[in-house]
């Protein structure tokens, strides 16, 4: 088709006007408006759901806090909601979650960051292209599998090494949760490092930096925002992790720093009550919303801290 003919056809499509008009076709404008509306609705659903969840959490928690004071809840050291006398001191659960998350972070952060640095700066291109999808598959393994892995493999393996290790214990739970979130850190951090402009690396190499120095002094600082974001996401997931922790650490509210003992996390308690036959409207039932609200506050706090940290330390490239 000649150029001339194309122009003729284009004119025809524009509604037969003799001179090409700048007025958009009605149908297209309407279609774009409809698409825009649909996309907005999709976004609105997720925002409304989140608002709804928070509203329910707060509402049910308010009912709980009419019966148990906030101070008692936050500072109490005994958690026995399912026995008499009932105590609603959340510290044992909070400690359980923190303990598991610290162990998990202690494993996942160094190993995840190390893997990311290896993949982005040291691994040959072909190996990198093979390993990246593998990491992403690992990140998709259901968490209950990790729980089973902890109970049937990690704990028996550790028992001869760690005297006094109970069948259910915080250590194994922390380790498998760490292994579970490691691919997340490795993959997201690697993305961030890969996005650092090549010119920065060359600049450092030209000054006589080694590969390791380029990785640690240029690439890592420049990719810090993505790296810290991956840490926060991973720790948030560790705190929120439920099934693996229930299976590995058990359901014993226990205010302890001894990782060999069985503990209960915030999430594990919520599962325990949700699966039990707790009557709707009872204080035990309401307590899971208070625990949920606390979980939400902890995760939110992590995110706020992360943002603050980034603002302070980020090295942003152009």
């Amino acid at each position, binding site marked *: 088709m000649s150029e001339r003919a194309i122009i003729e056809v284009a004119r025809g499509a524009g509604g037969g006007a003799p001179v090409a008009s700048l007025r958009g076709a009605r149908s297209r404008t309407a279609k774009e408006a409809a698409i825009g509306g649909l996309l907005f609705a999709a976004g609105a659903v997720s925002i409304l759901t989140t608002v709804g969840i928070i509203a329910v959490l707060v509402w049910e928690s308010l009912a709980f806090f009419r019966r148990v004071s906030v101070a008692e809840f936050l500072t109490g050291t005994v958690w026995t909601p399912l026995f008499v006398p009932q105590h609603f001191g959340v510290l044992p659960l909070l400690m359980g979650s923190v303990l598991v998350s610290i162990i998990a972070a202690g494993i996942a952060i160094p190993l995840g960051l190390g893997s990311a640095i290896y993949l982005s700066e040291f691994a*040959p*291109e072909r190996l990198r292209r093979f390993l990246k999808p593998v990491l992403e598959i690992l990140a998709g393994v259901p968490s209950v599998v990790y729980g089973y892995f902890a109970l049937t493999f990690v704990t028996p393996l550790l028992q001869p090494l760690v005297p006094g290790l109970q069948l259910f214990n915080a250590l194994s739970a922390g380790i498998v949760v760490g292994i579970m979130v490691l691919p997340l850190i490795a993959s997201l951090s690697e993305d961030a490092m890969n996005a650092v*402009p090549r*010119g*920065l690396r*060359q*600049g*450092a*190499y*030209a*000054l*006589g*930096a*080694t590969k390791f*120095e380029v990785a640690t*002094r*240029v690439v890592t*600082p*420049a990719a810090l925002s993505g790296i810290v974001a991956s840490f926060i996401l991973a720790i948030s997931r560790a705190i929120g992790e439920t099934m693996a922790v229930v299976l590995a650490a058990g359901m014993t509210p226990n205010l302890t720093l001894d990782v060999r003992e069985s503990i209960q996390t915030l999430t594990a308690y919520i599962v325990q009550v949700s699966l039990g036959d707790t009557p709707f409207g009872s204080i035990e039932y309401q307590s899971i919303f208070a625990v949920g609200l606390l979980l939400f506050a902890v995760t939110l706090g992590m995110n706020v801290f992360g943002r603050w940290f980034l603002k302070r330390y980020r*090295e*942003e*490239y*152009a």
Partner: protein
Amino acid sequence: MPTIRVSANGEAALETRDVRVRYGNNEAIKGITMEIPRKRVVALIGPSGCGKSTLLRCFNRMNDLVPSAAVTGEVLFHGENLYADHVDPVEVRRRIGMVFQKPNPFPKSIYDNVAFGPRLYGRPPDLDDIVERSLRQAALWDEVKDRMNDNALGLSGGQQQRLCIARALAVTPEILLMDEPASALDPIASAKIEELIQQLVEHYTIVIVTHNMQQAARVSHYTAYLYIGELIEYDDTNTIFTAPHEKHTEDYVTGRFG
């Protein structure tokens, strides 16, 4: 072919012997033998894709970073082949610095940019002095002395490029390689870089790649004309631009092609 010979009196900063570079099956440098005299400016000119950057990267082993690149031949520096087995490319790059076409300051403070190189080799007690000296040499000190802790990315393009030069000077190299250092800059910033090159050559040997004939004529003592991986002519800049021996060179420098 007329060429520059200085090795007889021991004044060569660098000497290449039959250097060849291939990227996979594509031979980008086809056997180049040349000498770079000490404390002089040598310009590499030639049409796009003729191998100027590739040759320049042979001078400090930056080609090692290109996985597909294979270099053969010798590059002699103080009589030692840079490509000998025992030579550490990291040490080579410390002695032979490089400035790139696009200014690439690190997203760190101005001070940390200049201090980056020296800090790789321990914690020099006189770091402040090194930073100041390097910035003065790069003619940037007066513009940045009151904002040393500001992020380098807040500088203008020309200032960023001079910062990159200061950063390279901070490790006291003997040779400075510059790949089109002014091509991304406006004419005033570009003129400042040229002026700077003329000052730096008192202390350093400089090899500069440029597409700008006037620039090559203004700043360099010697000019090498490359064409599709071969060194066509290498002579006094004056000769290259006024009375080249090769017809090909003449056509290029007079703008008849390329």
